[in-house]
C-alpha cells in the first residue's frame, strides 16, 4: 500500500487541499493550509478549519542542534522554505551546541524557544507527558496529517504512551559492518546472516598470538565500553519499561534478558578477560585511521549509520571490500523488515509554555515535511531523513555515493523498528543495567546471581519510579 502525502510544504503546491487515494484505496490525505497567503481553498476542503490568513506576522525562535558552518547553511534552507511558504512567519534560527541544560532552564523559567530540533530521544525523559514538550496529536488530527508521511520508526521515535511529542526529523539505524577481506582470509565467503553464523565467524576470526596477546577479535557487541551492550538486548525483545512508562518490565522479560546477556557473554568467553582488556585498551580512536574496523582488528562491528563515512575517509581504500548487513536476530535470518535497531533519532518539538502554540505548530509541520530541503540538508549532514519524501530523494543520492547506505536506509524504513523505550528514571536505570551487564560479561557476576541481580534492580527502581510518579 503506497502512501501519498500532500502537505503545504513539500512537492508541488496546490492551491487548496487535495484528496488522493491509491489503488489500494484507503489512504486519504488532506492538505494543511497551503502556501498562498490568500485563502483560496478548493471547495472540497475537508478537515482543516484554521485559516492561514488568521496569522499575524509572527517571529518564532527555533533552537536547533546544528552548529557547524555547512550544516547551518543547509538547515537554513529548510527554514527559508518555510518562511517562503508562510509569509507571515519569520523563524529566528539559533544553533545551540548543548541544549541539555539550557532548554529545561528556559522552560522552567517560562521563557522557552518556540520550536526545538534536537536529539532527546530517551534522554530528556521528557517524553514524559506534560513535562517539557507539547503532545501534538490533536493538532495532527485536526489538520488531517498522516503518519505515513514518515517512516514507522519515525513515528515510534516521538511516541510515548500513545501520545506523540513532535514530528520526526532523522534516524540513525544500526547494522553490522563487515570486513570482507578479513572474512575471506579466514575462509568465510559471506557475512553472517544468522546467529549461528555470527558466532562461528567470531570463533574463526579470533586471532591470538603465541604469547597470549590478542591480535584480532572476530565479534564483540562493543569493545568493552558497554556502548551497545544495553541496546542489543532488544534483539531478544528484552524491554525495560511499559508503554506508559510507569512500570519496569525487566522481571516480565527476565528470560529474554538472561538470554540476551548470555548471548553477549559467549563472545567474551572465547577470550581471556585480561588479554581482552589489554587489546581493547590498545585500540585506536574510533574516529581515526587507527580505527579497529578499518585496520582489521575487529572485522565484524555493530554500529550506527553515521560510521559509514569513516572507512573511506580514513582508510583510503582499506579495507577494499567491506559492507553492511542487518544485524542477525535470534529468530532466523537477518532481515530489515523483521527487525531493525534504531539507537537514536532527531525530531522537532514544541516546548510547553510557548507563546503561540498554533504558530509553532504551523512552523513545525512545515519543517518536518519540507522533503526537498530536508534531503538537501541530510546530504550535507549525513543522517537518514525520517520524512518519506525526503528519504526517497536522499536514498538516490546517498546510495550512488556509498552503496552501503542502502542497508541502513532499508533498516530505517523497516516496519519493525525498535527504539529505546523511555521513562522518568530511564537514564539512571540504563546506567545501572549497563554496569550490571559489564560486570556479568567480565565474569564478576555469575550466571546464578544474574536473575537475582536483575530482580533487585527492578525492585529498587520501581520504588523510585513510583515515588517520581506519585503512585
Amino acid at each position, binding site marked *: 500500500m503506497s502512501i501519498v502525502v500532500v502537505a503545504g510544504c513539500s512537492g508541488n503546491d496546490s492551491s487548496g487541499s487535495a484528496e488522493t487515494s491509491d489503488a489500494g484505496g484507503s489512504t486519504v490525505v488532506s492538505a494543511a493550509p497551503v502556501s498562498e497567503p490568500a485563502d483560496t481553498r478548493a471547495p472540497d476542503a475537508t478537515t482543516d478549519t484554521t485559516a492561514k490568513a488568521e496569522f499575524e506576522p509572527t517571529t518564532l525562535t527555533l533552537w536547533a542542534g546544528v552548529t557547524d558552518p555547512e550544516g547551518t547553511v543547509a538547515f537554513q534552507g529548510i527554514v527559508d522554505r518555510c518562511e517562503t511558504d508562510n509569509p507571515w512567519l519569520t523563524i529566528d534560527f539559533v544553533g545551540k551546541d548543548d541544549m541539555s541544560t539550557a532548554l529545561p532552564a528556559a522552560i522552567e523559567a517560562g521563557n522557552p524557544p518556540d520550536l526545538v530540533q534536537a536529539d532527546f530521544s530517551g534522554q530528556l525523559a521528557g517524553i514524559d507527558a506534560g*513535562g517539557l514538550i507539547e503532545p501534538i496529536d490533536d493538532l495532527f488530527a485536526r489538520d488531517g496529517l498522516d503518519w505515513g508521511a514518515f517512516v514507522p520508526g519515525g513515528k515510534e521515535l516521538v511516541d510515548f504512551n500513545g501520545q506523540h511529542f513532535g514530528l520526526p526529523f532523522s534516524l540513525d539505524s544500526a547494522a553490522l559492518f563487515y570486513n570482507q577481506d578479513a572474512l575471506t582470509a579466514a575462509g568465510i565467503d559471506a557475512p553472517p546472516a544468522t546467529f549461528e553464523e555470527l558466532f562461528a565467524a567470531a570463533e574463526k576470526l579470533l586471532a591470538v598470538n603465541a604469547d597470549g596477546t590478542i591480535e584480532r577479535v572476530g565479534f564483540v557487541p562493543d569493545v568493552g*565500553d558497554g556502548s551497545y551492550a544495553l541496546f542489543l538486548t532488544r534483539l531478544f525483545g528484552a524491554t525495560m519499561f511499559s508503554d506508559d512508562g510507569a512500570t519496569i518490565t525487566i522481571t516480565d522479560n527476565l528470560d529474554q534478558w538472561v538470554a540476551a546477556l548470555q548471548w553477549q557473554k559467549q563472545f567474551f568467553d572465547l577470550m581471556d578477560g585480561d588479554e581482552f582488556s589489554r587489546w581493547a*585498551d*590498545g585500540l585506536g580512536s574510533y574516529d581515526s585511521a587507527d580505527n579497529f574496523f578499518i585496520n582489521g582488528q575487529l572485522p565484524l562491528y555493530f554500529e550506527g549509520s553515521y560510521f559509514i563515512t569513516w572507512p573511506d575517509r580514513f582508510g583510503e581504500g582499506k579495507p577494499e571490500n567491506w559492507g553492511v548487513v542487518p544485524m542477525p536476530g535470534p529468530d532466523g535470518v537477518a532481515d530489515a523488515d523483521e527487525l531493525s535497531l534504531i539507537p537514536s533519532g532527531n525530531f522537532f518539538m514544541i516546548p510547553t509554555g510557548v507563546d503561540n502554540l498554533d504558530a509553532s505548530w504551523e512552523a513545525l509541520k512545515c519543517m518536518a515535511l519540507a522533503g526537498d530541503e530536508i534531503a538537501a540538508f541530510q546530504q550535507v549532514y549525513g543522517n537518514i531523513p525520517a520524512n518519506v519524501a525526503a528519504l526517497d530523494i536522499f536514498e538516490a543520492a546517498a546510495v550512488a555515493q556509498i552503496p552501503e547506505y542502502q542497508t541502513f536506509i532499508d533498516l530505517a524504513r523497516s516496519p519493525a523498528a525498535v527504539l529505546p523505550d523511555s521513562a522518568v528514571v530511564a537514564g539512571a536505570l540504563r*546506567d545501572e543495567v549497563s554496569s550490571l551487564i559489564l560486570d556479568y560479561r567480565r565474569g564478576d557476576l555469575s550466571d546464578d546471581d544474574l536473575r537475582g541481580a536483575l530482580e533487585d534492580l527492578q525492585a529498587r527502581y520501581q520504588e523510585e519510579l513510583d515515588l517520581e510518579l506519585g503512585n
Partner: protein
Amino acid sequence: MARRKRWTVLAFLSPWLIGVVVFVLYPIINSLYWSFTVKRYGQPARWVGLGNYRLLLDNPDLSMALKNTAYLAVLGLPIRLFIAILAAALLARPRRGNGAYRLLFYVPSVLPAVASGALFFFLLKQGGPVASLLDLFGIEAPLWFRDPDWAKPALIMVGTWALGDVMLIFLAGLVDIPRSLYEAVEIDGAGRWARFRYVTLPMISPVIFFTILTGVIGVLQSFDQAFVLSQGARKGRLTGEPDGSLLTYAMLQLRYFQDGRIGVASAMAWVMFLITLVITVALMTSRKRWVHTSTENA
C-alpha cells in the same frame, strides 16, 4: 563609635550582601525546597518529605561513590598541594628562567577538560608513549583507565598535572613574605629547612587552608574529568567504568540531572553541602592550631 563602625562594616560587605539577596538567595531556597519534593523541569513540585533522602540512602552505589570521592580527595589533594608548594617555592624568585618554568607549569591548568582527557588517553594507552617507556625498564604498564585499581591513580595524575592554578596561588602567597622574617631566623643560624618550617609555612598557612577547602569542594562537585576519562562521554553513560571505580559523588548526581529529576538531585546537593560544612567547621576550628595569621583574629 560602634555605630559608625557598624555602618562601615555594612558598607564594606554591601557588594556581597546585595549579590546574595539578588542572585543567590532565591536559588538556594528553591533547591532546599525541591530536595523535599519530586520535581521535574516544567512541572510543579510535589511534596514528599524525606522521600528523596531515603531513596539516596538506599542507593547501593552511594557508598561506592562516596568512597571513590574520598579516595580522590585524601590521596589527590595532598599530592597536588605538595607539588604545588614545592614548585612555587622553587620559583618564587625573579630568577632568569623562572618565568619560563612558571609558565610551563601553568599551561596544563588552562586546557579544556576534553583536550587533556584526549591527551592522557593517548599517553596512557597500551602501546602508547608511557607504556613504551615503562617497557624500557621492563615494567608492564597497567591498563590505567581500564583497570579498576589504576583508574583513580590515573585520574589523580591528570589532576596533578593541572595544578598550575594552585601553584599560582602559592606564588602570590610566597611573594608576600617579608624578608625581615627570614633574616630574623637566619640570625639564629637556621638552615633552609628551618626557614621553610618556621617562616614560610606559617605565612602561607591561610592559603593552604584555602586550597584544602576549595579542593575538597572541587572533588565533591566536579565531574568533568572523571566523566570524560571513564569512557562515558561517548555514549553518555555514567557507569563510572571500569567497574564503577571512577563513579564519583558528582557523577552519581549527574544521573539524576540527566533524567531531569531535580528533586533527588537537590537532595544530593544538600547532602554534599552538609558534608562540606562539617569538614569546613572541622578545619576552621583546628586551624587555630596550625594557621598563623598576623592579626589577632578569633
